[in-house]
């Protein structure tokens, strides 16, 4: 197993009130191996989403380096940047605001293909993409508001997979969904990961989900990684005091 995502000494500062500096990410280093589902857990403000945004080339880092499949998006040439987005794609939390309400689902899932630079693979059709995520082909003509939250998240996954990425970033992909629907989307992500050999960076505040589906986990707190390891071992026997507090705070359903 070789690392496909590398984050080295990543730091991100934001300007705070009256010339102060707020460090959102503080000297974070980790790597994700190929075909691994790597979880990042933490509460709001822990920096987990900022790490993902730097990897997605949405937020410029203050210090440190990131690379995915050997490309550093922040020093890459224009051409390499285009290729970069065929390597890494994202599914966001909110399936309501992450789609243009005036575009039909068919256009939503294929929009990225127009900028595709790799021509050695066949271009997927809308029907193929929708089929991949378990949506009927007829949904091509529908608008986002006509879909349920779960169906919209499926369409968001199809949009990400259209580019044929090796790495998929899923930032709280089921937090906005009803409890009874979450399993459908999570099972889809897990089976696609196996089927397509994806590497998944799974960002969540839900320790239960991470424990059930991730191979490794990093716990973030105040911009730092406080603990990394096997999710089951980490949550059953946390060594860091913050992780201990986090695990103890999760409301659990009694075991019958």
């Amino acid at each position: 197993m070789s690392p496909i995502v590398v984050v080295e000494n990543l730091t991100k500062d934001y300007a705070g009130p009256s010339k102060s500096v707020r460090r959102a990410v503080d000297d974070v280093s980790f790597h994700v191996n190929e075909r691994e589902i790597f979880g990042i857990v933490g509460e709001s403000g822990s920096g987990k989403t900022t790490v993902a945004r730097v990897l997605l080339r949405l937020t410029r880092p203050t210090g440190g380096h990131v690379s995915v499949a050997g490309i550093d998006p922040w020093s890459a040439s224009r051409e390499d940047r285009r290729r970069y987005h065929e390597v890494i794609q994202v599914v966001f939390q909110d399936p309501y605001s992450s789609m243009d309400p005036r575009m039909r689902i068919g256009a939503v899932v294929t929009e990225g293909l127009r900028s595709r630079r790799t021509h050695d693979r066949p271009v997927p059709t809308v029907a193929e993409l929708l089929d991949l995520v378990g949506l009927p082909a007829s949904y091509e003509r529908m608008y986002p508001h006509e879909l349920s939250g779960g169906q919209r998240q499926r369409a968001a996954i199809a949009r990400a997979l259209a580019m044929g990425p090796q790495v998929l970033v899923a930032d709280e992909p089921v937090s906005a969904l009803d409890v009874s629907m979450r399993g459908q989307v999570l099972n889809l992500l897990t089976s696609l990961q196996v089927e397509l050999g994806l590497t998944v960076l799974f960002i969540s505040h839900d320790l239960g989900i991470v424990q059930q589906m991730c191979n490794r986990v990093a716990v973030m707190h105040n911009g730092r990684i406080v603990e990394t390891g096997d999710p089951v071992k980490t949550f059953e026997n946390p060594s860091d005091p913050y992780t201990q507090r986090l695990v103890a705070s999760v409301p659990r359903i009694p075991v019958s």
Partner: protein
Amino acid sequence: MSAPVIEFKNFSLGRDIGTSWEPLVTDMTLQLQPGEILGLVGESGSGKSLSALSCLGLLPAKVRPLGGQLNILGRDSSTFGDEEWREVRGAQVSMIFQDPMTSLDPCFTVGSQIVEAIRAHEDTSAKEAQGRALEMLRLVGITDPEQRFGAFPHELSGGLRQRAMIAAALVMKPTVLVADEPTTALDVTTQAAIIEQVVQLQQQLGMTVLWISHDLGVVANLADRVAVMYAGELVEVADTKRLFADPQHPYTMGLINSARVRSAGEPFDFISGSVPEPSTWPEGCRFAPRCSRPTSVCQEHPAMTQPDSGGSLRCFHPGMAVVS
């Protein structure tokens, strides 16, 4: 058993859609007993928030009761005018909401909003009201109340804002607290602290609490009884222990399974399909299209029954295990 503080009797709510009324909550019968914490659980669109808002006469425009009765502290709420509702709100029934940033006024300090709550109901001097507001801020676990009193909502963290809102809601020592997902927007460590605080205050003040949540874990650890809503109606009401140990309605079972953590690598449980919109509710059992084992009788609409096991249930086939 003493008289319920809030009593829904075959209560229903609907929305004006021009030509007719679209039902949003139907045949709701539920009693809130004094001193208990009742968890009201359901997914989006189940009608749980609207049911809660009716207890304060805060229904949105175009939504209104269509039938049945809602008694608040023994009085029929349909007879209430604006004046009566103002007396009820804050003093007898109080409410805390999911997002304190939108329910506190950004233009006023949190202290002044608590003082306002007192002076709306009582003819008290500003000074005395201020003293009580400070005491309340301390009671909800704010460590430096004098300083926080003069803070504007945006100057506080999410957890502190929620505590300030709880202080404003409880300062008149209401009989009933309606809590609509008050910890959903908070981090779990903050959530744990807030829940502990509310339970402590509930015991201290002898309040009755209606706690609305979509998070079964929260309700399991907090409520004495749980009421489960689906598509505008109650489907199961039971003691918390019994509900989680031996759920009877297939929706309750599915919901518990969906929220339960399984071993690493196992697939996730879910309920197939999605929550129907009110306009597409089936004539018969509203859960039947998503149920794993519906039968022909499920094309009829099941009534709420009181099984021997206690609680109440709306299902023709109680206790059938959902085979996964």
